[in-house]
């Protein structure tokens, strides 16, 4: 692609440690890792439910171990952090308008958090 000769230094694998902004980006991307654990737990739960009562009780026992609870709390915090970054980016990717009125970014972000609260209240009402 380059027509002229010149000195080139390829990026090394630790490029993201160079700047605070890149570290925040990598943290955002890394939130998927604890989430994978949570998804694994959930799929195992559904599978053991199909296997019968003993398997289900064994799964419940597994889920109550402190390290499993700890990792799932981490997964919850990670997904909330990811939501925070996502909600802020959303109005930039999909700017919304009502006719000629451009809905301000803060209103879109607030709307998304209200939706989160609504979902939490709904499931709270359903299960508690």
């Amino acid at each position, binding site marked *: *692609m380059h*027509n002229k*000769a010149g000195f080139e230094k390829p990026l090394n694998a630790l490029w993201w440690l160079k700047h605070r902004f*890149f570290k925040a980006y990598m943290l955002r991307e890394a939130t998927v890792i604890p989430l994978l654990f949570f998804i694994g737990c959930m799929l195992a739960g559904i599978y053991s439910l199909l296997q019968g009562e003993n398997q289900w009780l064994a799964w419940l026992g597994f889920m109550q171990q402190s390290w499993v609870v700890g990792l799932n709390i981490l997964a919850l915090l990670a997904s909330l952090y990811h939501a925070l970054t996502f909600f802020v980016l959303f109005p*930039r990717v999909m700017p919304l308008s009502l006719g000629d009125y451009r809905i301000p970014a803060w209103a879109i972000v607030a709307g998304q958090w209200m939706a989160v609260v609504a979902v939490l209240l709904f499931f709270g009402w359903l299960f508690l």
Partner: protein
Amino acid sequence: MSTQELITQELITQVKIQRYLPEQHNEPYWQTFTVPMDESTSILDALNHIKEEQDPSLSYRWSCRMAICGSCGVMVNGIPKLGCKTFLRDYSGPLKIEPLAHFPIEKDLMVDMDTFLQHLTAVQPYLIPDFINEQPASTEPYKQTPAQLAKYRQFANCINCGLCYSACPQFGLNAEFLGPAALTLAHRYNLDSRDTGKDQRMAQLNSHEGVWGCTFVGFCSEVCPKGVDPAAAVNQGKVEAAKSTLIALFKG
């Protein structure tokens, strides 16, 4: 440091510049210069001072001194900046100036921007008139309402300085990625009411080297000296690319 101090004292500061003279050295090396400064000294002023008073062999690009030509981009302490729009007063301690990252260095602070220019050309960043439905070469001006202008105006402020390419790790990892400015400009023309070239541009945009090469690191928008927000444009481009894929799917 107060303004009063700056006025009454003769201030000097140290500037470390990455030099690269391909005829004499195989690799870049650092050279430290001492330059006078006051409240209004920009990085570009400091470079000019070095070239005029200390070392005429120093090479760098510049032209307008007012953040409109886009030629004086350099890395200042590892962050892409326009030399004319960045001031010594905002830094304490030694300053490190390097050529723009992710481009091959030709000499000192000058980089080879050919890749960037090829990417710009690739997205056809100009109005493509509707040759099929419209009689060619209308002499009437294309009219546009303020609302139609507002849709793309922000993205039209790009000065092609290339700072966003130096901020983009995806471009650093893969130079085939069209990159922030080219994708933004493509989006700017796609949004223009006078343009009908969206379908022609979509093949380029809707590819791995196009919008999908972006992972929304977002640093491009942080460093943009004109407030263009390329990250927003590229990711709005993803929405358009996804729509175009869906439409193509249903059309069969």
